[in-house]
């Protein structure tokens, strides 16, 4: 019976040969994604344009709508977003304004915004199968920056460069190269852009300003350490980690239910990795070689092991549940007055206070101070900080029909209007990513803008892999790193060595590198 089944299975190979996204990803006759290069028609559209501008060829869908070609039409439209991540819900709240804009500017009706959402770890699972089947269910997508390779290599998304060449007004000058390298470019260093920045994000620390300014705390700190308790942003901008931990230690009182700090160690998605990376990057550690795609010998370094020991050692200032802490836990611990400080993504700054917080909690933004990540002694002995980049780009579905493609481009034109960005940033917790937006005085009062822009400065943050294999690589190291934090892996060095070997194996098997993993990697387990 087994042999018979195997025979039937082999017989199905002829059918399977045609199941790649490249071959049958787009079959609709009016589907602009129908092309020989795997479904992505953006190149064809560009070729159609032949270097022309939209004035020459206003019917090119990547130009967006013209004054006439969408008049009187009704368009169904939808997007995908990250569940539980407020900045990606903002487009839905702002959608009625776009509906009015589309009607007034181009004369078409666009439906209420349909959406699908899933948490960070699951959204890719939701959109990848639909895109693999050539679906245009999600016309625009908010995605994580790590997914650019996985979405662009199979031809599922439109190349942003093609849109920029036709619509130069969308090619906005970014605040720093970090924006371009994180949200737009794939492969790394190629200069090819696929994404449009939606929500930029960097890391920082939220501190209890009201506790710092309490004279009793200041006096007690002086007595305990002989030092003055820093209270201003300027004093914290260049603070060293060890000095910062002295303050954390001062406020740490587990018996009273108050902890000195809170960081993310969860196995979920990239929570542990992104919280740990600044400790490694800033002390001279690297996680891979983006040019050769090699990991082994780079990730498993002594510098990285020491950084991980330091990172996990901070559990002394945190609740017993530290190993499961994620973004939401940071918010809860801080706003409920259970932690003096929280290492957090600055994009959730709008949620780091809660008007309904219990007594002792953070009910108002006046109660906290947002600062950049504390600095470490770098490889050359100088104070150094390199954080991890967060945030998400928009990407356009290659399988959109012509009208949906026009609406997508229209939407982006509307989204990047200064007045739209004002609503996004001032009313919906957004952050600016362009030079112009960063200089907008209207945003100056955002209490976490200063550390955000500081960390968005050249060289102060960096993103990690954008390869299609990111998910496999991430799962391996999240399990190993979290294993070290929970004591199931004996040492930081072992967690890093295991991860490096497995990631080298993944990249070698995918043909990304010619360097094979160490012998015995396949059979290696975490025990």
């Amino acid at each position: 019976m087994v042999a018979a089944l195997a025979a039937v299975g082999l017989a199905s190979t002829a059918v399977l040969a045609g199941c790649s996204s490249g071959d049958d990803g787009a079959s609709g006759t009016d589907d602009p994604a129908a092309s020989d290069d795997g479904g992505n028609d953006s190149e064809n559209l560009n070729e159609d344009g032949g270097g022309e501008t939209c004035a020459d060829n206003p019917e090119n869908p990547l130009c967006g709508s013209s004054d006439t070609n969408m008049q009187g039409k009704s368009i169904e439209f939808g997007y995908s977003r990250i569940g539980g991540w407020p900045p990606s819900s903002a487009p839905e709240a702002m959608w009625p304004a776009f509906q009015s804009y589309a009607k007034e500017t181009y004369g078409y009706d666009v439906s209420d915004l349909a959406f699908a959402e899933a948490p960070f770890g699951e959204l890719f699972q939701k959109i990848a199968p639909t895109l693999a089947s050539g679906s245009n269910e999600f016309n625009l997508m908010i995605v994580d920056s790590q997914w650019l390779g996985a979405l662009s290599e199979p031809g599922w998304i439109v190349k942003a460069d093609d849109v920029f060449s036709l619509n130069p007004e969308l090619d906005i000058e970014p605040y720093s190269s970090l924006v371009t390298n994180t949200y737009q470019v794939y492969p790394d260093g190629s200069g090819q852009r696929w994404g449009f920045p939606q929500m930029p994000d960097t890391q920082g620390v939220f501190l209890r300003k009201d506790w710092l300014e309490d004279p009793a705390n200041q006096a007690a700190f002086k007595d305990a350490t002989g030092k003055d308790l820093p209270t201003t942003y300027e004093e914290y901008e260049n603070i060293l980690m060890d000095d910062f931990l002295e303050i954390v230690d001062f406020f740490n009182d587990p018996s009273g239910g108050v902890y000195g700090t809170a960081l993310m160690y969860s196995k979920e998605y990239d929570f542990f990795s992104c919280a740990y990376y600044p400790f490694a990057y800033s002390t001279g550690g690297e996680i891979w070689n983006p040019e050769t795609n090699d990991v082994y010998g780079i990730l498993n370094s002594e510098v990285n092991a020491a950084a991980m020991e330091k990172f996990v050692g901070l559990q002394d200032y945190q609740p017993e549940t530290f190993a499961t802490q994620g973004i939401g836990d940071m918010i809860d611990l801080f706003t409920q007055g259970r932690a003096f400080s929280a290492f957090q993504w600055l994009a959730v700054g709008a949620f780091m206070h809660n008007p309904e917080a219990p007594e002792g909690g953070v009910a108002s933004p006046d109660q906290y101070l947002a600062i950049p990540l504390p600095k470490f002694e770098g490889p050359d002995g100088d104070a150094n900080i390199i954080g991890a980049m967060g945030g998400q780009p928009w990407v356009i579905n290659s399988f959109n029909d012509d009208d949906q493609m026009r609406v997508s481009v229209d939407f982006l034109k509307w989204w990047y209007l200064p007045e739209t960005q004002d609503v996004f940033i001032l009313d919906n917790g957004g952050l600016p990513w362009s030079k112009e937006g960063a200089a907008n005085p209207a945003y100056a009062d955002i209490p976490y803008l200063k550390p955000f822009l500081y960390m968005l400065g050249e060289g102060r943050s960096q993103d990690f892999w954008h390869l299609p294999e990111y998910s496999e690589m991430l799962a391996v190291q999240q399990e190993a790193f979290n294993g070290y934090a929970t004591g199931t892996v004996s040492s930081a060095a072992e967690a890093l060595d295991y991860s490096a070997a497995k990631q080298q194996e993944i990249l070698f098997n995918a043909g990304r590198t010619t360097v094979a993993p160490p012998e015995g990697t396949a059979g290696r387990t975490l025990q």
Partner: protein
Amino acid sequence: MSSSSAPSSVASRLEEGIPAPAPPRAKSKKTWWSWGLLVPVLVFFILMNVIPTIWMLGLSFYNYTLTSAGDPQFIGMDNYTQLAGAGPLWLSLGRTFTFMVLAVAIQTVLGAVVGYLFWKSNKVPGRRLALTLLFTPMILTPLSSGLFWRLMLDPVFGVINYFVELVGLEKIDFTTDATLAFPAVLVVDSWMWIPFMALMTLAALGSVPKAELEAAQVDNLSFWQRLVHVIIPAGKFIIILGILLRTIDVFKTMDLVYLMTNGGPGDRTELIAVALYRLAFKSFNLGYSSALAVLLLFIAIALTSIYLFVLNLRSRREAENA
């Protein structure tokens, strides 16, 4: 002879008022009717089971990652060869068998005790309500059970740790402690499925002939004698079926673990179904994950074969007794 006797036989039957047997045409109609009822099920089965299984089998011979740009590449048995050397997966499989043996043993023993207690309490008021409540965990989805148990076990605000502290003990980190996470999942799975084994026990006890029980009572047999000589011989098939069904089901445990511990801490609760889920739906490594799925399918088929063997054994016994 038969051809000549047949008409007279029919005539004599008619004379006696006995209706003639249905003509062949009627039989044909019945067959068509049977097939008519069967076809929708068969079509559904073929579309939803057979074709995907064959597809999966074919895919297992390919190198195909959904998110890569390339076409699927035929690589023969490479996925299976790779599987043979994949230490973490075999570790997960071993962990799954450990979980399976422990879970089924706990659920069978405790389920039998609970079932027996209910059987003996058939005159106690409120028994029906108690039975209904007992079966509640079984009808909840594993996702919701996993979620609320995770919340109850939470060391910061979980209700269980609240009581732990009330009795003067230190809070226990059930789901992230390297030694406690696996037992925690085991306990919750048992909480969900002990009622099922209790139900099977009740059914088994109900199948014991009353006459035999009364005879045992008249003979003044002890509890253990009645258990060994009367109850177990009569009810063992149902209990064995319960054990086998649970074995197959525990082997597939995924959602409860995913919600409670996400396979952690580290990989301490990563059962094979969770590993398969990660390979297929996180890494989108469809060829390799199909190979693993095929391997698990054969293990499940082996377990099912035992189940079918036991069922047939019972039929054969009944036929022999008849």
